[in-house]
């Protein structure tokens, strides 16, 4: 339930607020950052399912071609989750760096799908600038977002909390 509410809130904030803002010629995209955070906390399966769901929600809300955002965001969520399952988070900069890298990946994947579906107009090189700006903004957004999402979803996900509780109970018994 918490995850579902978080995803819906993320979509509403993105479409109703962040998409209207222009920073250095680019628009911040909260959704890949959110999915990376969920994937890092919940693993590959949760990341993929949440990415798929949020993509479907966005395509429906904007009346866009169904399946495009789902495909891209499920890959982003899956890759974030696989990173978490394979490597430890050794530095607080890892989530922002991963968010930036997967936003870049997502933007190019989205572009590749659009080209396959058919783009009927010439493409400006400024599109690269917009993608790079979005990547930088994702890095910045992820710095506060990852701790916030971790705090919000702690009861719903398995990252660290049960072990900590067992350690605390053991300490209290010894006392």
């Amino acid at each position, binding site marked *: 339930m918490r995850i579902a509410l978080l995803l819906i809130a993320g979509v509403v904030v993105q479409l109703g607020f962040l998409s*209207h803002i222009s920073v250095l010629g680019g628009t911040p995209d909260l959704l890949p950052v959110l999915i990376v955070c969920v994937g890092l906390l919940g693993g590959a399966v949760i990341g993929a399912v949440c990415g798929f769901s949020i993509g479907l929600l966005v395509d429906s*809300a904007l009346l*866009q071609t*169904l*399946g495009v955002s789902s495909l891209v965001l*499920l890959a982003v969520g899956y890759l974030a989750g696989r990173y978490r399952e394979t490597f430890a988070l050794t530095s607080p900069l890892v989530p922002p760096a991963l968010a930036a890298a997967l936003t870049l990946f997502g933007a190019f994947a989205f572009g590749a*799908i659009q080209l396959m579906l058919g783009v009927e107009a*010439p493409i400006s090189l400024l599109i690269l600038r917009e993608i790079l700006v979005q990547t930088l903004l994702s890095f910045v957004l992820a710095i506060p977002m990852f701790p916030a999402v971790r705090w919000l979803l702690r009861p719903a996900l398995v990252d660290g909390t049960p072990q900590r509780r067992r350690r605390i109970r053991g300490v209290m018994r010894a006392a």
Partner: protein
Amino acid sequence: MYRKQVRRRRAVLVLLVIVSLVLLSSHFSESSSGPLHSIQRGVATVLGPFEEGADRALKPARDSIDWFGDTFEARGENEDLQAEVEDLRDRVAEAESAIGENKELRALVNLERQGGIPEGREPVTSRVIGRSPTVWYSTVTIDKGSSSGIDEDDPVITGGGLVGRVTEMTSGTARVTLITDHRSAVSAKVLPNGPSGVITPEVGDPGELLLDFIEEDREVDEGQMVVTAGWRSGNLTSLFPYGIEIGRVTDASLDEQQTYQRVHVRPFVDVREMEIVQVLTEPGDGDRKSQAAAGDTG
């Protein structure tokens, strides 16, 4: 145990990818009245009020952020605007003379025009409540839909000029495909007495449009205004009525005109900044869709 987890993970991934691909191909190939589109419109109807609520609630925060950006940009724009004012003073003098002549001619042929709104169109004012976050889709969602008389292919404008057209509606919201979207193509004419052509966007650059397929042996000069052509051929009419302002020619090199039959146009409307738009609805829209022709796809 570990292998079971790996198999489960791969199965979920493969299933989700297959479902996404099936949705994509089905949605892409079905008509707008198909089941997937209907479900999509249902979801958009439910989410519409939340988008509108978020847009209104977060507007002060958005305005604050925009203020910082506008302040930094203002200084650089000041010098450009002063030069433009000088140029516009000369044009105003020419335009006033043309207006006088125009009034006389209109009286002669008994034409009526309601300010900036083409004849026979009722404007429906609405707010932009949602915007696509990617550069590949140049669309916005507005807070009025079919219940306000809005229909598919209705032109959308702001005080500055043409914005796009309505491509999908729910009862309370509508999607507007902007003139900067890759699927957009608008029949246009260069004023005064210039050639006709088709306005297409450059994907990724909302500040630049291309006027393509201009007639050969007709030259276009920098600074000329471009408006919708509003053509009619027998029973077929273009989606956009004549005379809606689109932009101004910025780059009209002779080489490009002769080789590619193309010039560059800067749109009057900054589609990234607009918040209020008007949809030009037509009373009795039922048969109008059959009049949409190949020259206007957006």
